[in-house]
């Protein structure tokens, strides 16, 4: 996808082969989830980013 310009900020689209960006987010239930910690247990991860509608 290459480089996308979003309001003057360059957003690099991640693609296959890239290193995934690590993150720490909280679930609706208040549980803290760290991607790197999860991967460390040997699991693969499927990330489903929701859109707004449907």
């Amino acid at each position, binding site marked *: 996808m290459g480089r996308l310009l979003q309001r003057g900020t360059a957003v690099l689209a991640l*693609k*296959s082969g890239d290193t*995934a960006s690590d993150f720490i987010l909280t679930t609706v239930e208040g549980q803290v989830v760290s991607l790197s910690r999860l991967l460390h247990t040997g*699991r*693969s*991860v499927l990330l*489903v980013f929701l859109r*707004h509608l*449907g």
Partner: protein
Amino acid sequence: MAQLRQRQDDFERLNVQVLVISFGTEDWAKAWLEETGAPFPLLLDPERRVYRAYGLGRSVLRVWSPKVLWRYLRLMMAGRRLKPIQGDPHQLGGDFIVDAGGIVRLAHPSRDPTDRPSVEALLKVLCETGKGGV
């Protein structure tokens, strides 16, 4: 999401953790969980930092294509209740598979709401990912 839920056992068998990420508010997220019955953790990213880190920006021109409008019209005709607009309808979504080594194995930003990989396609990549294949 219904498709993903149906294949929950397959994800577990393949030792895959499914994470759903939303930029909505906590209330919106809870309502979504209740409506979809999604059995996966739902992470909140209201500032969309992670969305951006994965290259998911906003697309005003592409969201309301004829194909997309037709899809929503069909849903409405089928009586499906659509959630009220809250926040940003132009934010793109997407599906990503990350292997245990932290490498992206599939990156599928959603160009429009009808553009998502099938669950079969996802499982195929996950199967290969688990075997350590390319």
